[in-house]
């Protein structure tokens, strides 16, 4: 009887685990920024993030909005192999509105990525130029995406070479 119970428990646990795994697609999916936590995203009021993963290829699609008439979107692609640098076109730079920084005159960013913990912790590094009053300045951005154990929460930690304040953002799965 005890053995049967134990077997059931094992079966139940493995099933639950399998179920969890089935419900946890890693970073891939649709995410919504929780503006009550983390750094301020202002002037943006909301962000929706879609992450698509196909092998090493990862794509981030962001949709930012600010009041009813200001809605913007951008996309970033990278290869998470720790080697490949992907050049992304950047029509506008949305991450530093207050700083009066435009995307540099080359309008590109160079992005590379690597799984620090497969499926759970992703490192993304970006090199780009930002244009300010005095012209273009090189900027390096270091991002780490951390997925919670239950797969429901995604945390982004960001360091920008020009900024001494680390940024963090919390996303909830949609």
């Amino acid at each position, binding site marked *: 009887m005890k053995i049967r119970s134990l077997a059931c428990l094992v079966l139940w646990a493995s099933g639950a685990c399998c179920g969890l795994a089935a419900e946890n697609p890693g970073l891939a999916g649709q995410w919504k920024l929780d503006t009550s936590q983390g*750094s301020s995203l202002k002037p943006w009021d909301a962000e929706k993030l879609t992450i698509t993963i196909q092998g090493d290829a990862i794509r981030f699609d962001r949709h930012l909005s600010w009041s009813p*008439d200001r809605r913007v979107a951008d996309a970033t692609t990278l290869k998470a192999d720790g080697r490949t640098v992907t050049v992304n076109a950047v029509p506008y730079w949305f991450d*530093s*509105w*207050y*700083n*009066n920084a435009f995307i540099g005159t080359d309008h590109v960013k160079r992005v590379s990525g690597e799984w620090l913990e497969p499926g759970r912790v992703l490192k993304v590094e970006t090199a780009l130029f930002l244009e300010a*009053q005095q012209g273009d*300045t090189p900027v390096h951005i270091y991002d780490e995406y951390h997925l919670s154990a239950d797969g429901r929460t995604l945390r982004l930690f960001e360091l920008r070479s020009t*900024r001494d304040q680390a940024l963090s953002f919390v996303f909830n799965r949609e």
Partner: protein
Amino acid sequence: MKAIRSLALIAGALAALAPALRAVPGDPGPAPKTAYAIPVRDNWELTGGLPENALILSLQGLANTDAPRVYIDYPADWHFHDFSPVKQFYATKYGVAFTQLDTPAAALRTLGHFARGYVVWDQKVRTSLNVAFTAAGILRAVVVDQDLIPLAEAQGLPRLADFRGRFEGWTDVQIYQWAYDRYWADCSRDYLLWMGGVEGDVMEPGVADLGIAFHCFFADLSSDPKDTAEYAFEKRILAQMKPGSFIFGWHPYGKDTEGQWVTLASGYGLKIIGLNTFPNGTFLSQIGFSPGFRFTNNNHVTRATTLVAEPKVYISLEQSDSMGIGAWTEPERGKIPYDWDVGIDGMRWYAGVIEMFVQDKTPNDYFVGGQSGYMYPVAIPDSRFPALMQEMNIGMAACDEHVVGIMDHTRPRQAVPVGYNDLPKRTVDEYYRYAPDAIGFVNGYAAAHTYDLRNGQAFMSYDYYLDQHRAEDDVVADLNELMRLNPKRPYYMLVHVRESNSIKRVMAIIRRLDEHPEVVPLDTFLKLAASNQTYKTRYRDEPPAP
């Protein structure tokens, strides 16, 4: 036959009298010895305090049409709260003795003779109040809702128009078309009233007295091209205004954006005096400076001065949006150099307020000029630009102002809020051409990237918009980052301080910055910027030619 002839004579006499009733507001003169003060309720709901407040505002417009007789006491938290002390200023500095009329009944008893009758608006149709305001100016009537009819009739006032039930189920375009057909021929072509602002069951028509005194057409049509019918109607109205005319009021928040509205008005060469909450316009604009007063600025340099910038960071802090809704009355004013936007139209429309502010200036307060009102230079027709610049130069000279402030926001349809406030080269060229005697130019509202230097005149843009809601830590990080993004020294950091920021907060932020920048007044800042151009000459990005 005799009766008809008599009627014709009476009509002719009334017509002859009509010009005499045209408002004097906007033509400042000496202060009166006496005036009445009437409070309004701190409730602007259609079914709350608005009916009584609208009655008082209409009475003010009628009574003040040819002289400043009535001052309205607004609640302490009214948008133009800094204007409130001006009543006491008029009493002490100008010697105006105010008699208080504490109720609408008392106000009507005392001032009802300025009205020829009353018009009734419909509480169920918000837009009917704008039609009633238009009718009030044309017919010389006070504005009442159903409940206030007995009060008006108790003063022997006849009913001149009644909009109850007339507009139910109509669209705004239909209502305004009806008002247009009925009143537009008699409305001013020099002044227009845009009663926008808050929407829904609230209206804050502080500027209505000016509209009534000036026989304005009142509307709140949409400037969003998507609202095809309203947009077309608005354009039809604007096209009929005289060159150089003013629009008082503000755009309707629920229908369009500020950028859409000001761009449209500027396209017809019209200037806007905001907001819909602008208080006591008919009173303030008929009283000039007190005898002997002269507007003077704290000038630190002249056009010919040459300064040499040191290899460090310079900051200048400018609060725009006039002094009436900002930090001027805070105790910290004067502790650091601060620049205050005082457009040239203030002298015409609220000289007493300007005098009250200016007489109280500290050595650290510096006034910045420019074509005030809301006017986007990029949208102004070429034919109007020289006259506006000439007007600006005359006004700035009278105000002892020597720095030109510019704001443009002509890309309302662009969702991306980047480069929004930049100017194309042709507009920069025009400022250099028409303001050769200015010390320099400052541009933007949000940050912008328009920079230039010609003939010793620096053309700088705001590098930072200090949002009153942004956390202090974030602002400090932003400003420190700006210093990293601009590594050459000298670096000239021009900060637009949104008016709701306290000076205390700004001082705390400045104290925490990494490089301990030197805060300087704007004229000095521009001369320093002219001495060593570390900034990149840049204008608005223009799309490639097709």
